[in-house]
């Protein structure tokens, strides 16, 4: 986690020469030639790949640090990754409410303290039914009510199934929060306390949802920035029990990092289902029922509360 955090802020060395990286949501152009002219060669050479595919050597002193850049432009981020249809399978029989998913997500997206994009609900459907833990994230609905109501297209649905938010466009009307039946959206009532001044001025990327901005809405983004790098979403990677499996419906595979499953088999064999099917929102998140559980249900928070009262 720490490691990927620093790599985010890492200098994009190659961008100086290749300039291939598109400019993100920001209006600031990070490629301007405002480097000091009186750079003295240090003698230390670095090997780089040029636009034409040739390996060239440049003196290290000529490399210029650029701020963290979104890996794709806003226009591209609105289209999505071609040919993909992302899905998540959440296995309720493996969850014991460790909330590692939650803390990883909060940390990586700099979510305001107290708020969460991943929530882990202690559920009990009826008096005599068994309680279980139910982690929820944005369902990335295929018929997303939140997208339907957004007046300015700040929240949008991509070709690859992901629902994202453009915090540079959101007007903060909170209609989407009223519309989302899964209560998954959170609002930045003030500037998030977890966003440092340094981070706050960086260009916002719809794909990483960072930095969160005052007066706009936020939610789980299925981590398309990680997917582009060939990595798993933060919650999937952080869960030690392999509760979350993420993948591509078109390839029919999902993985929790250590195990990989055929999506259709998994859903068929374990009787997968989606939440609030009756509303017609068609979520991209599937649940496997809490049968043959790995852990007994134990609600520590509730116990602590009971003791207090």
């Amino acid at each position, binding site marked *: 986690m720490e490691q990927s955090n620093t790599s985010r802020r890492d200098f994009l060395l190659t961008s100086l020469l290749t300039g291939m990286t598109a400019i993100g949501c920001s209006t600031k152009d990070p490629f301007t030639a405002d480097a000091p002219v009186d750079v003295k060669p240090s003698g230390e050479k670095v090997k780089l790949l040029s636009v034409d595919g040739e390996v060239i050597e440049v003196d290290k002193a000529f490399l210029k640090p650029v701020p963290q850049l979104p890996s794709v432009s806003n226009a591209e981020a609105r289209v999505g990754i071609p040919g993909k249809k992302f899905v998540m399978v959440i296995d309720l029989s493996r969850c014991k409410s460790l909330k590692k998913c*939650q803390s990883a997500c909060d940390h990586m997206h700099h979510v305001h303290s*107290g*708020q*969460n994009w991943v*929530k*882990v*609900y*202690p*559920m009990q459907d009826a008096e005599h039914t068994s309680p279980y833990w139910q982690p*929820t994230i944005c369902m990335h609905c295929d018929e997303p*009510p939140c997208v*339907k*109501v*957004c*007046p*300015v*297209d*700040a929240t949008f649905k991509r070709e690859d199934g992901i629902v994202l938010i453009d915090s540079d*466009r*959101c*007007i*903060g*009307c*909170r*209609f989407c*929060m*009223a*519309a989302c*039946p*899964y*209560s998954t*959206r*959170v*609002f*930045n*009532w*003030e*500037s998030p306390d977890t966003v440092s001044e340094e981070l706050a001025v960086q260009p916002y990327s719809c794909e990483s949802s960072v930095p969160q901005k*005052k*007066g*706009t*809405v936020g939610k789980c983004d299925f981590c398309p920035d990680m997917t582009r790098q060939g990595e798993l979403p933060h919650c999937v990677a952080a869960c030690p029990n392999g509760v979350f499996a993420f993948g591509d419906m078109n390839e029919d595979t999902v993985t929790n990092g250590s195990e990989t499953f055929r999506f259709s088999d998994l859903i068929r064999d374990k009787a997968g289902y989606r939440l*609030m099917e009756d*509303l017609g929102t068609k979520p991209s998140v599937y649940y496997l029922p809490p049968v043959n559980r790995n852990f007994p249900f134990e609600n520590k928070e509730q116990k602590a509360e009971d003791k207090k009262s």
Partner: protein
Amino acid sequence: MENSAKQKVIEELLPQKFGKQGKIWVGILLTLCIIGLIAYIRQLSKGLVVTAMRDYVSWGIYISNFVFFVAISLVGSLITAVLRLTDVHWSTPLTRIAEIIAVSAITFASIIIIVDMGRPDRFYNLFIHGRLQSPIVWDVIVITTYFFISLLLLYFPLLPDLQIMLRYKEKTNKWLYKLYHYLGSFWKNTAGQIKMSERAINILSVTIIPVAFSIHTVTSWLFATTYRPGWDSTNFGAYFISGAFLVGAGGVVVAMYVFRTHYKLEKYITDGHFDKMGKILVMLALLYLYFNVNEYLIPAFKMKKPEEEHLRGLFTGEFAPIFWFAVSMAMFFPILILLFKKGRKPLPAFIAGLMVVIGSWFKRYLIVTPTLLHPFLPMQDVPDSYRHYFPTWEEWAIAVGSLAGALLIITFFARIFPIIPIQETITETEQHEKA
């Protein structure tokens, strides 16, 4: 009508300077507005965190205030358009009161919706990125249309009166004279102009009715297009409109009484007006009651699980005191008072009207907030303050400030222009005498 009688009507109806009471009233309203403004500046600098709204209650009294304003503004169309088109003449002295209520309320509805926005600085996004399928965009369109039609319906009938006021130069001061001159000097009372203005007013009266229905229907759809228990209802458009006519008519009765006693207009706003408005109010209250029965009792009969919590909260739970207060203030008591002839005398009718307005404000609050506190999934993983809602002083200050602002517009309007149409009153008396 003899000239001296005409003279008298004009003199009685010309706008009057603020007396001592008037000055105190304006002073109070201005203070409330300024406090509201200070609260808003705090909100702008700190963000919506100064409110008590949080992720579950994401809409609070700003939105209920917005719904209230839109509702009360509907009365402009009821009194001016519906009664005008059906050739009801007794309502003539009330038209301008109704129209100015409509204009000031719809102005503050727009202001309060901007106050509710997390990023008011991006308001222009609605125009450059607006998407037609969002009910918010529909609302922006119909509210703007309604505002302009109402403004014109206020302005056209004012033209002959401006002419009269220009003739009474000695009764006004320099600034007002300039204003009248600017607004109405082209009006020469020629037959052609009168005909044109009448045609225009007729066209506007016809168009304002569907637009008025739209503003409140679309406002109800902001809620009804979601899945939430308490909002997910096909009854909502009609329910909102009937409630809107009720609170608007209540507002007019209150304003009638205040103007009548303050400006000594007993001759123009007569007991008969209160009697008739009282009857209208009873009818509207019964209509609203009918929609309320539909809205609450039918879901309560079935008690679906998500609805159950919501309805129990209203009937016997957390919100029961406000619920029963609002229902009895907005419907039961006014109906009881106004059913009797004595209850339709000015003072009791005024009290009933005031009850309707106050009850309706709380009713709007009950439509917005309790639903948000009963989401489908339990409230979880949030700080304790997210589970309740009680508005902060900033929210109260802004809400009260906006109400004061609307009253201030009405007050200043009555100071500058005749609140009862002079020319129309004269014409109507003449027609009466002829008949």
